[in-house]
C-alpha cells in the first residue's frame, strides 16, 4: 500500500503537462523542422549519374537528355531530374518521379544505375601538387 501511494505521488509530480511545457515542446519541434528543412531541403546544383562505377556530373541548370546505352534515358528539365524511358520490367525508377533536392536519388537496380543530386561542392578538399 505504501509503495502504491508513493508511486501515485511520483506520477502526479511528473505527468500533468503544464501549458509552459507545451510551449517549449512546440518551440523545439518547430526548431527541428526548420533545421531539417534548411540542412536537407536545399535545391541541388549538379546531378551525378553513376553506371558501373563510372560517374558523370551534369549541370542541373541546363536542360538535356542523357541516354545510357539503350537501357534508360535520364532527363534534366527545369532544375529537376527524372527517368524517362526505362527498358526494365519493373520501371520503379521511371515511376519514382522527379528529384531536385540535395542527396535525393533515383536508383535503377536492374541496370545498376544511380542518379544523385549534389550541391556541386563535393571534392572541394582536393588539392594537386606537382
Amino acid at each position, binding site marked *: 500500500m505504501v509503495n502504491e501511494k508513493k508511486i501515485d505521488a511520483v506520477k502526479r509530480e511528473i505527468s500533468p503537462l*503544464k*501549458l*509552459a511545457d507545451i*510551449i*517549449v515542446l512546440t*518551440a*523545439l519541434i518547430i*526548431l527541428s523542422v*526548420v*533545421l531539417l528543412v*534548411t*540542412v536537407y531541403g536545399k535545391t541541388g546544383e549538379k546531378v551525378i549519374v553513376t553506371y558501373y562505377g563510372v560517374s558523370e556530373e551534369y549541370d542541373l541548370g541546363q536542360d538535356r537528355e542523357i541516354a545510357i546505352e539503350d537501357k534508360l534515358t535520364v532527363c534534366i528539365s527545369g532544375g529537376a531530374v527524372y527517368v524517362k524511358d526505362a527498358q526494365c520490367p519493373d520501371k520503379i525508377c521511371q515511376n519514382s518521379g522527379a528529384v531536385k533536392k540535395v542527396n535525393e536519388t533515383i536508383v535503377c537496380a536492374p541496370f545498376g544505375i544511380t542518379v544523385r543530386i549534389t*550541391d556541386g*561542392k563535393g571534392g*572541394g*578538399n*582536393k*588539392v*594537386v*601538387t*606537382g
Partner: protein
Amino acid sequence: MKKFFAAVFAAVSLFSCFSCAENYEYEYLEKDSAVFSGAMTLYVKLLGRDASSAFEEMSLTLEKIGSEISLTDKNSALSYFNEKAEENEKVKVSKETYNLISLALGFEKETGGAFSIGAFNLSELWGLDVDGYSGYDPFEDIPVKGELPDYETQVLSAKAHCDTSRLILTQEAGECFIEKSDGELKIDLGGIAKGYCADLCVGIAKRHSLKSALINISGNIVLLGGYYDGRKFVDWEISVLQPRPKAALYREEVCAFGSGGDISIVTSGDYRRYYRHESDLQLCHIIDPISGLPTDISLGADGKSYVQKPEIVSSATVLCGSSAAADAYSTALCVMGLENAARFLQENNDVCAIIFTERGEAHGRMYASDGIEFIKEDTYGEFRKYEKYAPA
C-alpha cells in the same frame, strides 16, 4: 512562469537565427589572380568573415615583394643588384626582401649548399633562367641548338662567382641594404620567394582570423586548418602529379595523401621547366650549385663531356610547417639525389617528403617519410611501379 517560458522560446528562436547566420558565413571565398604581370599566380580558398579583405591584403603583399625581386623586370631592385650594382655598392631593399635573403642563406647552410640563391650565373650560362627554358615547348619537342658551355673555361669560372658568402646584408637606421664584395655575383630568389610569400599570406589569414584557408602561390600550397565541407571540418586530400611522362601536360596523379591542415606542401621536379638539347641531353631548370651542372646531367669520364645521369630525382614533394622551408628543401632534395635526401629527411624530423626517381623514361624508386598517410594506394596504378626505397 509563462513569461519565463516565453523568454526561453524567444531565446531558442533567436539562437536558431544565429545558427543560420553562422552557416552562411561558412562558405569559402574562392579567388585567383595573376600577380606581377603573371610572374606569380595566387589562388586562394578562404573561409571567414574577413575573407575578401584578407585576399586584398595578400595580393598587395605579393605585388610589393614581386616588384622588388623579379628578375624578368629589369627595373626591380634585384635586377639592379645583379646587373648594375658595383662592388660594395649598397642597394636598398625592403624589410621583407632582407628577411627573405637572410632566411635563404640559412637554408643554404642547413642543406650543405644543395640550395643556394647564388647560382644565377650558372642558370644563365646553361640557358636555364626563365628566358631560356620558356622558349622550349614540350608538345612540339624541338631540340634546342647550340654549344653547351665548356666545363673548364665556362662552368668553373661561372661557379667561382656563385659564392653567397660574398653577399653582405646590412641594416642602418631601420633601413635594409644588400651589397656584394664580388661584382659578378648574381642572386635569384625564385627558389624560395613563393614559399616566403605564402608564409606572409598565412600570417595575413591568421590576422583576419580565418577559420580555414588554402593558399596556392604558383604551386606553393599552404593549408590552414581542415577543409569545411558545409557541415564539419574534414581532411584535405592532396594529389601528387605523376612526374613522367610530361606531368605538366597530362596532369595524371601518381598518389594522394591526407592532411588535417596547418601544413605547407611544395613539389619541385625536373619535368616542368626543362629543355632538350640537340645532343639529346635533357636539361632541367634546377642547377646543382655544388657541381655547377643541371641536376639531371653529370660530367663524363673524360672530364669534358656531359652525360645524362642514370637515375635522377624527378619529383620531390616536401611537407613542413614553413612554406619558405618547404620551397627551399624541395629544391635541395632534387639536388641531393635519393640516398642523400633520405638521409637528410631522417636527420630532420620536422620535414616530411615523398620523392620519386626516374631511370631514363622508366620508373625508378620512391621514398616517403613515415608520417605520410597515403589514401587509396591501390587506385594509383603508376604508384606501385616505383620500387620502394628503404635506407639502411
